[in-house]
């Protein structure tokens, strides 16, 4: 076996937890049943790795097959690493093809035209998502399988999810995507996070939304037999806040986002400190919110009264616009919106 294959295998074994590794190897279908049963998953990882190596040598397994383990692992457990969302723009209805084979051939041909040394693996899952694994190489070097880029695309939708993409490979990937999906260009949506399903739900608006209405609904929580000897003095206010919170952030389980970043490039406004206010250049600052489930926390802030109501558009546009990176600029003379996008 080649050295690359050995290193890739040992890295995979090291990185994947044992329970998941067993499951993934079961799905892999390159090892026979007896070979699988002969593996002892209670061993330490280095010993397990040795055993696996000998089995792979026995079956004459190449790098290509090993990358499949990684791909299976990433697609079964997609919440690894940070995913960035991009949008295919200037697409017409009929141009978004639903034919996987056609898309695959086009994409492979387009990317190989742009760069010689690249290894591409594509797979379509049951949920209609197309997973692409790209190992990049340089002009004179072979593809580096240790740092692959993962791309997830749902055919017939304009969104692409990309993980661990280096800046120098960005134009190549985008051009290949644009050509094979027949769209004009690829745009950064400024949305990123760890949970792939949450990003998909947020960008395609698939979570449970509440639309603003004049009629206040009776909230379900209030109907859970209230204790007669406990009474809330501010019940109307509490209900109003709940209503506002669910209008902005949706009802039920919210998509899991980890961070929201606001970059300020505004004039400093405060009376008293003349030195700062008189400066011509903008006052720069970054505000970053992070939490294990950011939207849930923000919703709690609103419903518990920590954030003022009505909710500021800065917070509500996370769900309304589906993005979590904002650059806030001063309003120019004219009609430039005060929240505008910028590059990552």
């Amino acid at each position, binding site marked *: 076996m080649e050295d690359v294959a050995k290193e890739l295998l040992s890295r995979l074994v090291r990185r994947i937890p044992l329970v998941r590794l067993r499951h993934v190897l079961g799905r892999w279908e390159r090892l026979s049943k007896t070979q699988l049963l002969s593996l002892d998953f209670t061993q330490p990882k280095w010993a397990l790795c040795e055993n696996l190596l000998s089995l792979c040598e026995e079956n004459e397994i190449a790098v290509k097959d090993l990358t499949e383990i990684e791909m299976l692992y990433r697609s079964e457990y997609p919440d690894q690493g940070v995913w960035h969302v991009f949008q295919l723009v200037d697409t017409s209805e009929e141009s978004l093809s639903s034919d996987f084979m056609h898309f695959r051939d086009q994409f492979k041909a387009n990317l190989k035209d742009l760069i010689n040394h690249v290894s591409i693996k594509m797979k379509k899952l049951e949920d209609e998502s197309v997973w692409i694994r790209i190992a990049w190489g340089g002009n004179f070097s072979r593809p580096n399988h240790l740092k692959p880029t993962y791309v997830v695309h749902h055919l017939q939708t304009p969104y692409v999810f990309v993980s661990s993409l280096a800046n120098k490979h960005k134009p190549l990937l985008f051009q290949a995507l644009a050509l094979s999906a027949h769209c004009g260009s690829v745009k950064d949506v400024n949305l990123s996070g760890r949970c792939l399903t949450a990003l998909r739900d947020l960008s395609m608006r698939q979570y449970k939304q509440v639309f603003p209405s004049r009629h206040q609904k009776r909230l379900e929580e209030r109907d859970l037999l209230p204790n007669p000897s406990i009474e809330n003095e*501010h019940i109307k206010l509490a209900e109003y806040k709940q209503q506002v919170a669910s209008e902005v952030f949706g009802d039920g389980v919210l998509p899991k986002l980890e961070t929201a970043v606001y970059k300020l490039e505004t004039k400093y406004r405060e009376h008293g400190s003349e030195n700062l206010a008189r400066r011509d250049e903008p006052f720069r600052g970054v505000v970053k919110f992070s939490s294990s489930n950011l939207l849930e926390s923000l919703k709690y802030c609103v419903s*518990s*009264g920590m954030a003022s109501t009505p909710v500021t558009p800065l917070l509500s546009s996370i769900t309304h616009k589906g993005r979590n990176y904002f650059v806030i600029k001063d309003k120019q003379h004219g009609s430039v919106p005060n929240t505008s996008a910028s590059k990552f």
Partner: protein
Amino acid sequence: MSLLRPFSKLPELNMANVLLVGNDDTFQHVLADAIVKQENNVNVNVRLARTLPLPAENEDSRPRIDLVVLIVNLRSELSLSSTETSLKHLDTGFFLGKVCFLVTGARCTSVPHERLASLRKIAVSLHCPLLFTEDQTAKGISAAAGRVLNILRVSAGLVPLATGLGLSTLIRCSLPPDLDCQD
């Protein structure tokens, strides 16, 4: 601006009414549940409020308040400042043994010391008891409910020969000498 008055209504037989004032909704609800469940002999009525003053439209349905518990979560500055504004809407009659502070999160190491110190000064100047409690564990909450109930029984006049003012002089917060010197 309407002041909340302690003696503007008639008391009812075997009733004790406590008003919990605080920002932290979840803790308030859990504590209210615990208080109602712990007391079996008399009818305890718990009223929850975020801040004072209380809305005027509930004036008629509101019974006489026997004890006002101001819940301060030391982890948030907002909780302390809203407590300070709430205090202005209490009639002076309440401070004769019908107000107590309930402090949560005092064990949290990231809390600045000044918050507790300033709260302590308020409690001293108003001659009120200052109770500390743990809000994360069920045990802490039931202990807090028990302590609130003990004071409530006295201030509602359900304990013979004891008055709220008498109890308050015994358990009110006093300033330690080192804090006293700083003024």
